[in-house]
């Protein structure tokens, strides 16, 4: 069983649909499941009770306020709390709740972090910060949990996959080399499914660009 967070938004909803189409059992968590460690533990326990052992978590949850473009000098504490602090704490709670399940199953975590984080973006700094926070938290966790047999990886979709209102070119990025940002169901989900599968058993701490060739890592 695979848990997908953030599927109330189009990108993760597409990943969920694609994973289901490939025959996976995919489960979402109820509202409020990322609000505390206890809530995350209860939600994952219920998912496991209802649908069997947890093989992977695909984590894409972020408050949609993150997508609003605001000059950085106008970002107030409430906005920063919602975008940076909630995103990071939500991921921490999911990791903590998933740890015993994933350790038992040799499972994995896939974080969905659009290339906006690696590239940086004017008027989207809090979102970019949260994305890079998630991505490097994934690396830290991959290093620490490797001996437990748990893998943690990141996929980086194109900016066009999230409703920030600007395309790659407007973020001073190259357009997708493949000519389109891709379809979450058909183009992105198969790579996420592969990362969750035993075929990717030696891949951890890695970031895979799933943007059709927008951002090519140095």
């Amino acid at each position: 069983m695979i848990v997908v967070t953030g599927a109330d938004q189009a990108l993760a909803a597409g990943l969920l649909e694609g994973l289901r189409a490939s025959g996976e059992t995919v489960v979402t968590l109820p509202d409020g499941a990322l609000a505390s460690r206890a809530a995350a533990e209860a939600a994952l326990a219920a998912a496991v009770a209802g649908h069997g052992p947890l093989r992977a978590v695909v984590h894409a949850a972020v408050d949609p306020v993150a997508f609003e473009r605001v000059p950085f000098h106008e970002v107030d504490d409430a906005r920063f709390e919602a975008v940076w602090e909630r995103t990071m704490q939500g991921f921490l709670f999911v990791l903590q709740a998933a740890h015993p399940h994933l350790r038992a199953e040799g499972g994995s975590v896939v974080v969905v972090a659009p290339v906006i984080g690696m590239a940086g973006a004017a008027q989207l700094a809090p979102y970019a910060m949260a994305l890079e926070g998630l991505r490097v938290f994934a690396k830290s966790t991959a290093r620490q949990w490797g001996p437990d047999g748990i893998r943690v990886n990141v996929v980086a979709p194109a900016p066009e996959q999230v409703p920030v209102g600007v395309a790659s070119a407007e973020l001073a990025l190259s357009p997708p080399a493949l000519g389109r940002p891709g379809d979450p169901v058909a183009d992105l989900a198969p790579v996420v499914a592969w990362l969750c599968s035993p075929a990717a058993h030696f891949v951890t701490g890695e970031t895979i660009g799933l943007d059709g060739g927008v951002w090519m890592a140095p």
Partner: protein
Amino acid sequence: MTGAPDRARRLQGRTAVVTGAGQGVGRGIALALAAEGANVVVAARRAETGEPVAEEIRARGDEAVCIVSDCTVRAEVEACVAATVERYGGLEIMVHNAFKGGRAHRVEDLDLDLWAENSRSAVWASLYTAQAAYPHLAAAGTDGRLVLVTSPAGVEGSGGIPAYGPVKAAQRALAKSLAREWGPLGVTVNCIAPVAETPALAYAFAERPELKDRVEARTALRRIGDAEADIGGVVAFLAGRAGGYVTGQTIVCDGGSFLGL
């Protein structure tokens, strides 16, 4: 004066605030900026650490003042910047270096108190220092500089101190984003990622003597950096005219340990 006498001091007439300047890397940056002629505000949580650094700078014939300020409190950062501008007439260079929270932990045991130390001192304080400095950096135009002190862990993560990775990564993403956002004003925004002799590192080495050999062996140069000469000098470069076309970057000053960027 410790700057070379046969050339102009590169930061003469400019004013810098350095957070966490009471010790370690922050102290080294404060000394280096002052030696290049900058008016330096030693921003420290405690006068016991900040005042001696300001005094050390003045004893060299350079200009500095200590302002006691907790960078995790928005009002204190704003007050520090206001006092700086009142005293020196402007603010061209903001350096956020302060950090608290680098204790080893397991992800599954990370509690919200330790997370908050990391998040508040690295990330929230970046928000506060950048915002408080913003109108003054904008007024300084092509002399405006924001420098955030991050870490190689902000690139590669840390298995021993997992929370340290994401909070340092967030600073790198902020530098990239603000470089783009403030670039039209002429202001540059960069990170440095140092490995340097600091009280924190000395403490870690005292606890685990084998760690010093390991860290040194990992550096291509086979030594741990000096906070003033090796790290402060790089910030002085970024802060000066010669650094004016470098923005959105992380300059890794680690003696050649992490070569992956």
